[in-house]
């Protein structure tokens, strides 16, 4: 229903606005700064690059301050850096397209494996030979010994 969808969108916008307004500038700077890598070759997160006289990180940090003061969204700022420094500046692949495969593959594999294990357990437990229904279970000494051995750990 269109009106319901409009209400839903309005609520979503309100929630996002509250979240965005509530975010402290320094926290946001910290968050975005931790989603990029210093491109000097150290491989460290931008805000954690600790090289004395690093020619790159102060420039990038200054650019980040400028873009944040300019009111850009997190995504637009990250896109700006990716366009200027290349995709490797992003600490994780977030550009969409093939980058999504990076996120989907581990989750899909995990889910498939979980379903597989569940299916395997179900198959195995169904195949189980039922315990004798004709009378009480008689446990011999040798059987007791084996049970003890097999259940020790």
């Amino acid at each position: 229903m269109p009106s319901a969808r409009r209400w839903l969108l309005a609520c979503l916008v309100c929630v996002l606005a509250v979240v965005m307004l509530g975010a402290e500038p320094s926290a946001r700077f910290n968050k975005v700064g931790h989603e990029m890598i210093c491109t000097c070759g150290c491989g460290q997160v931008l805000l954690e690059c600790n090289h004395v006289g690093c020619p790159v990180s102060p420039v990038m940090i200054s650019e980040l301050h400028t873009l944040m003061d300019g009111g850009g969204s997190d995504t637009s700022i990250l896109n700006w850096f990716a366009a200027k420094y290349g995709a490797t500046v992003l600490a994780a692949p977030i550009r969409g397209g093939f980058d999504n495969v990076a996120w989907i593959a581990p989750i899909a594999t995990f889910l498939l494996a979980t379903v597989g294990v569940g299916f395997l357990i179900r198959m195995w437990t169904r195949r189980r030979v039922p315990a004798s229904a004709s009378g009480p279970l008689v446990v011999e000494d040798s059987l007791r010994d084996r049970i003890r051995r097999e259940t020790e750990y």
Partner: protein
Amino acid sequence: MQLHPMPEFGSFTLLLALALSVYTLVMGGVALWRTRGATDGAASRLGETARRAGIASFVALSCAAFALVWASFTNDYSVSYILHHTNRDLNTAYKFSALWSGQEGSLLLWAWLLSAYGFVLRVRHKVDVRLTAFASTILAGVQIFFLLLLNFAAPPFAIQPGPVALDGFGLNPLLQYPEMVIHPPMLYLGYVGFSVPFAFALGALMMRYPGEKWIHITRRWTMVTWLFLTCGIFLGAHWAYSVLGWGGYWGWDPVENASLMPWLTGTAFLHSVMMQEKRGMMKSWNVWLIFSTFLLTILGTLLTRSGIVSSVHAFAQSNIGDWFYGFILIVFAVCLFTFFRQRDHLKSENRLESLVSRESSFLFNNLILLAACFTVLWGTLFPILSEYVQGTKVTMGAPFYNRVELPVGLFLLFLTGIGPLLAWRSTSLRAIRRNFVLPGIAMGVALVVLVAVGVRPWKAGDDWQSTLFSLVTFTLAAGVITAIASEFLRGASVVATQTGKNLLSSMVLLVRRNTRRYGGYIVHFGIVVMFIGIAGGAFNRSSEQEMGFGDAITLGQYRLVCQSYSQDSNKNYDTEFALLDVYKGGKKITQLAPERRFYQASQTPSTMVALHSTLESDLYVIYEGKNPDTDKPIIKVFLNPLMNWIWIGVLIVVAGTGLALVPSLTRAPVRIAVAEPVLVAEVHHA
């Protein structure tokens, strides 16, 4: 022509070791082939010569390692490797560690450690002569690969052309730290050590070894190897924390990942192998777990050495990657061929009987560990895939791993708690209620207390994810610790009833009766403590400031006041440092001296972190350099809560593994023959 006696001796011993290893492989193989149906005196004698040749290869490789260390200690700069990795004023301990600071030396260390493991295996061959002969022959095959590399692709004794230099280029400053003397050998002991269970598993499969005795034989090898790898990984993490100066200990660097992957599969193997040992299940799975673990150790060495992925561990890179690709392919082909040829030997003797059982918890444990391993492998190799598919590389940094691995880690923590509470075969509802009440209460109480003291994700703003992770971790940790403690107490009270001893003596007796089980619980406890430490990272804080004389910086409960800053110099490096008085609650508690060194030989800087460590938090101070305008030092301070818990957790893991290695008072018999399935309605694990 100038003579170089020691390097030439080293080169000769490497060639000799190669010849001896080839003899061990070929003659060992021939002897095994000829004795496959019946005993053959001549073939047995041939097999014995192969075993002795394997032992001799250890002696030859020891001589090669000695020759390289000797060259380092005597400043023999005619050897290219020594010229590039040492200098005259290098500290004695670091001259020794130069053995593994470059590619050729670390490959020599690999080969030497492998020969040392082979030496122990061959000396102890009477444990099972034929199985050991198989394992010895397979190990010789692995050793040949490394000796081919050392003799033809990366010779450590290559002579530097031209006149001999007066001094060397020095050791990488990042490696000039005490932990670097033990971290690489420890890691290599772990990497190389997995060759032994691999060789036993492949050998047992090749000879269709009856029963599970081979697992019993290799159990200690696997555990010791796992322990070395664990120590190696965490020594590396501690080194990164203490030296790299970025306030963290794990950066998800490809080389760090390379060490984590075999650890994850090795951990899965240690768990699932119990199902084979006790119930004859998961045989194919276990064989492939140990095959994969070994292949991942080789892949790890490939990643470290070849430079196919960008890494801060660029200490030793070259183009020997093709050799490794070839070796990995050969090993995989041999494993696959043997598996398909002998797969009928790997049929399960029992079936899983219930979803709620120890067996299924092991299955899920394996699933989680392998999912974590796959994620790490995927993240490590995705940049290469991305470049292939879309022409541009991407970075797979901490944000990717943190988002994907944290839920996996939490699930693993959850299983750590519930797994030991489930009985083998099947657990009744009554047993579940009985075993889970206390941990459930503990988790509830922990959750309420944590929220009350302010761990509230909904009020953490942008940090809500890390705060939520911490809240869940602390809550689960409370449950798991309670579960482990209740297992000890329940067992001890049974022993106390049987023997009339007090609870403490009963607990000691309980542990001594089954060191493997209770050692395992202690390892689980250590893992939980480590998780608590990791979760503390959500509350890290930092501050950076230029600090002249008398200037102060405040972070949390600490106030740091600059007393002085100066510089010094010695033969190896120049140093700049600041002296900072640390106050807590107005009282001076210590003085810290963060330092920045500049190594003369290599012309590179290095950070020396100053650390004040308590159970509550780490005060981590780094000297970032001087502001050229004011000539005052820039100091960065981190406050890292619960950091020590990680290292304490590792110590507990080491203690638990050590305990599990001690023989129990009552020894469990080993399955040596295939038996019929047992039908039991419910069996508790006590």
